[in-house]
């Protein structure tokens, strides 16, 4: 593997701007060597990959030069410019593999070196993911080494069957979204106790929550903020309104609102919310009978049993819009929290948050408008539920009746086959073809019974030696089944084999599986490419075949039987593949022969 190497014409540069020294870059798994064209030049390089920690490269397609930048452990880096991007990519992949190889500590031999050289352009992330998978899974690594380096499969073919594995690996880090805090933002004014100043704390998170819960505030923000007032003014006003609410002084609130129309926006009941609530009520399943359900739960308790010292006194109608109920707030908050975070905007800018929230709301509304089926469905449901049972015709059962036919048909049919089956069943250990008349058979049976009646039981019933033999036989078989089958059902034959044999068997099993998977998946052969692939696979499989035989012969005689039992299915599977291959080749040659004749 160490002899795999890549050689490309390149320029070595000390920096990107540097014109560079033309020369030849030679890469192998251990090191890269740069030889300048000018033998007198001093910029010879001979660096081990062990020292290299990473690589960077310029994007293809841009007008830039094809650069490859290797970062050294100690901080320095080597920049190479290539004649073409194709050259660069070959080197880049080689380097990626080499670095991965060396970053795997301890494993000095082998590894995925140059095989990544293929025509397919892989993204760097993809390559890294593959390398990571190989590192994590030693079995996969073995297979990869065996088949991809052995030239039986190309890298792309190998990975094509493992797309799922790659995807899984990718999905392993899901992006978790943080939900809204399940905490109502209640204004807790921080008063210093000396002056009459009241301080509110607002964070982007809280602003987001306010926007989500109070569409009217959001609306006001969008319409007021840049033009009418500054952001600070806006929030001061809002806080003032909240403060008024918290004092529960409805009359005072109304009075303030009358003076300041902007403040009134915050103090009045949220019209948008009310609209939305009405819309939702329209969509409630009409079959829900609130009255009937009333007794079932505790909704008839005032305020759900929560104690809230809300002003209960009757107010004049002009103050009505300034009242807010706690349960309204609670419901709105709950709805928003359950809905979760709708927008994925950076929280820093309140304006963008507000806009994003408005957009999602509008989208929701328009969705509903377009969804006219909903109303139809609702009315369907009403008519279904509200139907009067007495007036309905008898409904057909939804199931097809099960008709068990006369069971005699079934038993009679056996008679015809009895004779045939008899031949099959009887021919077990010894074929019993003797045809006996019933009279004879029954006669002998009654004779035997009467024998015993006359003679009595034989004394002794049996030979003590036979009894001992039976007893020994039973004990032996019981202890042997106990030994073989074990108490542990997971204990398999494999575990009883020597470790080397076991590993070898398992390895062959996986490799045979891999080969067969590729083999069968390339049928039917439609392109020349598949044809060569199948031929390659077939050759590889025929190499495995004698190896399996070798294993069988190499093990000790104690295990030979078990090993051959294990190897047998593998051989069978391979045989099936060979047979299929041969048949296919024959068919092809026959077909081409025909065609030839047709032309001739």
């Amino acid at each position, binding site marked *: 593997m160490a002899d795999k190497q890549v050689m490309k014409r390149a320029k070595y540069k000390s920096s990107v701007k540097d014109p560079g020294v033309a020369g030849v870059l030679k890469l192998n798994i251990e090191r890269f060597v740069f030889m300048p064209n000018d033998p007198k030049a001093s910029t010879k390089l001979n660096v081990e990959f062990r020292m290299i920690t990473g690589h960077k490269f310029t994007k293809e397609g841009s007008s830039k030069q094809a650069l490859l930048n290797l970062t050294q452990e100690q901080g320095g880096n080597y920049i190479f410019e290539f004649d073409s991007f194709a050259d660069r990519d070959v080197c880049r992949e080689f380097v990626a593999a080499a670095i991965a190889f060396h970053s795997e500590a301890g494993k000095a031999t082998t590894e995925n070196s140059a095989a990544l050289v293929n025509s397919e352009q892989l993204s760097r992330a993809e390559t890294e993911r593959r390398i990571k998978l190989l590192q994590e899974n030693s079995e996969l690594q073995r297979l990869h080494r065996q088949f991809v380096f052995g030239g039986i499969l190309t890298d792309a073919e190998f990975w094509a069957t493992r797309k799922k594995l790659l995807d899984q690996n990718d999905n392993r880090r899901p992006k978790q979204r943080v939900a809204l805090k399940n905490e109502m933002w209640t204004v807790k004014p921080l008063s210093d106790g000396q002056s009459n100043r009241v301080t509110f704390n607002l964070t982007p998170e809280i602003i987001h929550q306010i926007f989500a819960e109070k569409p009217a505030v959001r609306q006001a923000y969008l319409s007021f903020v840049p033009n009418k007032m500054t952001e600070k003014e806006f929030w001061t006003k809002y806080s003032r309104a909240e403060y008024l609410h918290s004092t529960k002084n409805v009359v005072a609130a109304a009075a303030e609102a009358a003076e300041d129309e902007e403040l009134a926006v915050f103090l009045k009941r949220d019209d948008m919310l009310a609209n939305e609530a009405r819309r939702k009520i329209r969509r409630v399943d009409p079959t829900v009978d609130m009255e009937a359900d009333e007794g079932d739960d505790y909704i008839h308790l005032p305020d759900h049993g929560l104690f809230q010292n809300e002003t209960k006194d009757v107010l004049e109608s002009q103050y009505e819009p300034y009242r807010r109920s706690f349960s309204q707030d609670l419901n709105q908050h709950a709805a928003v929290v359950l809905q979760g975070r709708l927008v994925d905007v950076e929280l820093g800018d309140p304006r963008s948050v507000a806009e994003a929230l408005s957009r999602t709301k509008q989208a929701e509304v328009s969705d509903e408008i377009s969804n006219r089926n909903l109303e139809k469905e609702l009315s369907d449901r009403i008519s279904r539920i509200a139907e009067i049972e007495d007036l309905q015709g008898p409904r057909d059962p939804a199931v097809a009746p099960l*008709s068990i036919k006369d069971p005699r048909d079934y038993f009679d049919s056996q008679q015809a086959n009895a004779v045939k089956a008899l031949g099959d069943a009887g021919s*077990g250990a010894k074929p019993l073809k003797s045809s006996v*008349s*019933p009279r004879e058979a029954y006669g002998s*049976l009654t004779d035997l019974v009467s024998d015993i009646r006359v003679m009595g039981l034989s004394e002794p019933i049996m030979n003590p030696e036979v009894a001992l033999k039976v007893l020994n036989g039973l004990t032996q078989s019981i202890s042997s*089944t106990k030994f073989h089958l074990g108490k542990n059902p997971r204990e398999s034959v494999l575990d009883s084999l020597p470790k080397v044999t076991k590993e070898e068997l398992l390895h062959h099993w996986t490799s045979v599986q891999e080969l067969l998977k590729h083999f069968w998946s390339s049928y039917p052969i439609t392109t020349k490419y598949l044809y060569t692939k199948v031929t390659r696979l077939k050759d590889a499989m025929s190499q495995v075949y004698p190896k399996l035989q070798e294993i069988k012969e190499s093990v000790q005689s104690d295990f030979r039987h078990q090993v051959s039992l294990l190897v047998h299915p593998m051989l069978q599977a391979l045989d099936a593949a060979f047979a299929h291959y041969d048949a296919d080749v024959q068919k092809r040659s026959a077909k081409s022969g025909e065609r030839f004749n047709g032309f001739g």
Partner: protein
Amino acid sequence: MTPVSSKLYTDDVSLLMVLIDTNPFFWNSVKSTLAFSTFLSNVLAFLNSILLLNQLNQVVVIATGYNSCDYIFDSSDSQSQTQRVEQMLQKLEEFVDKDESLGREDSVDGPGFSLLSGSLSMALCYIQRVFRSGPLHPQPRILCLHGSPDGPGQYVAVMNSIFSAQRSMVPIDSCVLGAQHSAFLQQASYITGGVYLKPQLLDGLFQYLATVFATDLHSRAFLQLPKPAGVDFRASCFCHKNTIDMGYICSVCLSIFCKHQKKCSTCGSVFGQAQTQDSSTPDRKRKTPLDA
């Protein structure tokens, strides 16, 4: 009838249902290796020893004939001990006569099948009767002393008996005397948690019976009894009564067929034709190149 609540529950009193294969064609075919009289004397000694193990033990013998089945012995019938064997043998003779008179065929090839399903059902019925009446609630078990090959035609009936035995927690022990293993009894013992045994030395039958099948169910928990190395789970198809490895199953009633049917012969469901061309043949397709 004794009310169930006042019954005597014990863990060491057994009700042993012994099913004796009396298929004359089978016994005729093994005359040289194991004569029916030798078999009987072994079994009688075994039954006596069961009765000696516990005073309250009960033994019922059912003859599994070629054309019929019948109870031939019940130890709970009051009778003097000395006449037990005499009475049973007499009943057995009568049974054989009756069984012969029911037969219609002139000649039978090979050993034929005995009515295992019938005697299993009778044994289960008897157990249910004991459960619902009488002063005792013994631990029941069924012991099949069977020689005839499996009658594939009885597949459904036998399986139904097995499952009802499993439901009433009655283990079915089997001692196979014939030349081949019995798939029915293997499954029966496996499903119901009984012991399946095929004695190698038929001369020592009594020893096998006494060693393996004499212990009551409670003591079995402490013993290592022979375990079969494998169970033949193959089913018989309903159309030709062949034992098959792979087949078609009716999606409605779970009937088994060896070939694709247009309509289920048991429940009459009509099967779709949609994928028969493709999905039913790949197995064959794969096999043909093997043969080639």
